[in-house]
């Protein structure tokens, strides 16, 4: 069974807290815009506010990345390479098709969660591939 070392536990706690703040700000954003007649400037501020905990989460992740050993850093980098390539190819193909065919619009806000979850999944696949019996 996988056990968390203290650094990993600390990272997980901080990262989850950042995600909690993100969700709270999403709720604040939704209700504030629905319930109050905000000025355009305030709508922009409230809409963009949830990005702050995401930037914070990025710095938490960066700190964790620097604590990883050379092997896990290599695999994490490779997972990001795969994620970037897949995301670029998929968005490019979709964009090309959208220029020629009537395709539904997809919000750009979906890209970030897709990138984060894909990176995690690909990292696990790379670890699994390396640990397989020859």
């Amino acid at each position: 069974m996988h056990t968390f070392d203290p650094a990993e536990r600390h990272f997980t706690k901080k990262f989850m807290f950042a995600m909690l703040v993100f969700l709270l700000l999403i709720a604040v954003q939704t209700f504030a815009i629905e319930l109050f007649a905000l000025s355009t400037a305030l709508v922009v501020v409230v809409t963009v506010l949830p990005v702050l905990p995401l930037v914070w989460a990025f710095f938490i992740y960066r700190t964790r990345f620097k604590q990883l050993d050379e092997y896990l850093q290599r695999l994490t980098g490779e997972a990001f390479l795969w994620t970037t390539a897949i995301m670029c190819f998929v968005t490019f193909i979709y964009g090309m098709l959208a220029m020629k065919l009537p395709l539904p619009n997809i919000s750009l806000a979906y890209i970030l969660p897709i990138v984060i979850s894909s990176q995690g999944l690909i990292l696990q696949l790379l670890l699994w591939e390396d640990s397989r019996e020859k």
Partner: protein
Amino acid sequence: MKNKIKVLRAEQNWSQEELAKRLGVSRQAVNAIEREKHDPSLQLAFAIADLFAKPIEEVFLPERASKRS
């Protein structure tokens, strides 16, 4: 790069987890090095050789040397 870590580890009766703790790396890193899926940095290779009290060339065999033998 070929290496004798698995044999040396077995001689010390250490698990991968234990060796990883002594080296300050993850168990996955030890596993990948043993399986020759990852070539360690010079710093880590020297740390491994030091831990087993062996010269580095007794623990790691570069492809050139392993082809010759």
